[in-house]
């Protein structure tokens, strides 16, 4: 093997080794690196510790308390759902059937109390006309 060939083999080996090591490390890291808990693994989440809960706002679940500030809604991932209570200003994109990440803590009894809400946007982008045709729900088209 010529020295050049040798260096080439070494360089390729190094790239494969580095990428392989990272892939292994990342898949081992798995859920440890998740940004939020899904409702399905709420049972394994610690109580009264600051965590995040993410999922879809269940359609028809948003209700406002009599105080006018507190809202209640259900976060679901299709497998399980968790009732959430939040008092404060919701982001503009917070709506039913849309993604949300709530920062707060799980409380005894299976609920979640949020200190802050983040809207999670999905990867679909479309003009209002198209969105209106897809699902006749609310859209910013007036």
């Amino acid at each position, binding site marked *: 093997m010529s020295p050049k060939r040798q260096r080439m083999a070494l360089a390729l080996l190094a790239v494969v080794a580095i990428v392989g090591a990272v892939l292994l490390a990342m898949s081992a890291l798995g859920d440890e690196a998740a940004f939020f808990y899904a409702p399905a693994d709420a049972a394994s989440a610690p109580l009264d510790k600051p965590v995040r809960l993410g999922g879809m706002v269940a359609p028809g679940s948003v209700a406002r308390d009599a105080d006018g500030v507190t809202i209640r809604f259900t976060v679901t991932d299709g497998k399980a759902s968790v009732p959430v209570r939040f008092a404060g200003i919701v982001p503009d*994109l917070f709506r039913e059937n849309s993604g949300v990440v709530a920062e707060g803590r799980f409380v005894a009894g299976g609920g979640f109390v949020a200190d802050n809400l983040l809207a999670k946007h999905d990867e679909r982008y479309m003009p209002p006309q198209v969105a209106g045709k897809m699902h006749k729900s609310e859209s910013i088209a007036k």
Partner: protein
Amino acid sequence: MPSLHALANPRRFLSIARPLTPLLVWGGLALFAFGCWAGLTQTPADYLQGDSVRILYVHVPAAWLGMGGWSSLAIASIVFLVWRHPLAAVAARAIALPGALFTALCLATGSIWGRPTWGTWWQWDGRLTSMLLLFFVYLAYLALARADADRDGDGRIPALFGIAGTALLPVIRYSVLWWRTLHQGPSITLTKSTIDPAILWPLFFTAGGASLLFGGIVLMRMRADLARIKAEARMRRRAAV
């Protein structure tokens, strides 16, 4: 590969790079400006995000070039280590600065978009954190390459660092698929796009334009670096006489 070797000759490289530089820079700027104009005036707003969707025409090319920049830096580093050609090291050094700039642009535009959309400027989720790491890795490479040049190093250590840094690229790419993140999943893959064609099309102009501009900046920096090397060699010869 005779063509690669011909291009690796600095004189022949310069004879091609000199006329190519203004073409890439001005062509890139024109395409990018047209894409921005079209993105601001010719496309509909998004049904949920409203007008803030338009930042994608800058954000997405910046993200692609930040990552593509490191891929080409790594390829140049491999070429340098295997074929020992100094021009490849010059190319790798030239790529680092625009790569860092586009990565910073991606982070800044993403943050500006995140405020109205998510309701936050910054969160430590998988995608945002890994992209910030790439920015720091670029800065580290710049410092390392400078230190290596200052001490008359042979350029092998920055080249090895360039190869090692590729480890971040799959992490950034798949962070939104492996982990639950705040950042949405990929909208555009090789085979499909979940962005409506009416919104998507100016992105091709801004992405193409930014890529040409990136190439133009790299050529400019390579030419400046070659001129510096030449001037230093001449000074050294003169000092020796």
